[in-house]
């Protein structure tokens, strides 16, 4: 068994199978009409894509760690986050339990590590 990297979920075949419906829904958000349809009725939209309970709950919560655990891939999830105007630093702060300012400071600190 290969050693794992803490705080990291490689998006492998298992995750790609698990997250297929969730990622397919997020991929659809490339189109404005689909983003509008989701915002108008999230439950109906999720049903249309066949999300399971774990995935639907993760979407409702907008918690990125839960979305990843449900099989979400960062690149497709970013399109979901975009609907709510969340940028990568918002998402980074949320996943690391920091404020956005703290997360930004952590990034800048990488200059001196």
């Amino acid at each position, binding site marked *: 068994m290969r050693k794992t*990297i803490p705080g990291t979920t490689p998006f492998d075949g298992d995750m790609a199978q698990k997250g297929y419906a969730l990622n397919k829904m997020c991929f659809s958000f490339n189109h404005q009409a689909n983003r509008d349809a989701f915002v108008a009725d999230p439950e109906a939209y999720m049903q249309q894509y066949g999300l399971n309970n774990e995935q639907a709950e993760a979407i409702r919560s907008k918690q990125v760690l839960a979305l990843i655990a449900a099989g979400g891939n*960062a690149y497709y999830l970013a399109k979901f986050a975009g609907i709510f105007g969340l940028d990568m630093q918002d998402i980074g702060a949320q996943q690391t339990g920091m404020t956005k300012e703290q997360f930004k400071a952590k990034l800048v600190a*990488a200059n001196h590590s």
Partner: protein
Amino acid sequence: MAQLIGGLGTSHIPAIGGAIHKGLQQDPYWKPFFDGFPPIRAWLGETRPDVVVMFYNDHGLNFFLDKMPTFAVGAAPQYCNADEGWGIPTLPPFKGELDLSWHIINTLVDKEFDIVTCQEMLVDHACTLPLKLFWPEGDCPVTVVPVCINTVQFPLPKASRVYAMGKAVGEAIRSWDSNKKVAVIASGGLSHQLDGERAGFINKAFDLQFIDSLESNPEWATQFSIHEIVEKAGTQGVELLQWLAMRAALTAAAPKVRRVHSNYHIPISNTATAVMALEAV
């Protein structure tokens, strides 16, 4: 035969598109990144490539998980950008270079790289932003052959395989029956991680070592497994594979490269950024 003049590399963070759109190049946050480009643009102004081959990774604009190629080569007369879903401006289409596309395809398959060919292909920010960064004024003066390397779904191609593929692309460029000047571009990296509790991971020491290796020891990064690259550079830092392909292509052009210019800056968004130009000498 065509001339392979050198290679370029740049990060491709989506937010760069917004910064260009808003004219923020001199803004204190953005200036340290954009300041890396003028010396490279000056070199491009002197050398004037006609065509570029772009190693990049799609982020879910053209390819979904239904069909995910490891290596895909564009063979389209024109490449369009489109809405990527997160609010960055859509950039205008640019022209392909069909004759070189098919020469690369034929050469790669002959060398036993069983690639996917794309006569229609949307290209995302990873393909459009480098062109806008290197040639910011007016219409893009180069034609393009996009080569997409999967960094989305594991298993990713091994670093050594990417290197071999890049070298084969370089050999294809060198054997192209054309009097045109060609450059190769790497789009991506360097260290960054968007997902998980490890989000925000950046590894400056590794990045700087990688950049130096491109100049003098191009095969250095092929010693690492994909797992090790993710560990050292982050889940998205694995995009450094694009840089490895670019550098490998240059080995077909000349025994050595000269570093025209490079710049490294932390952070833009969640990413350690790099830009670089290497001249085949």
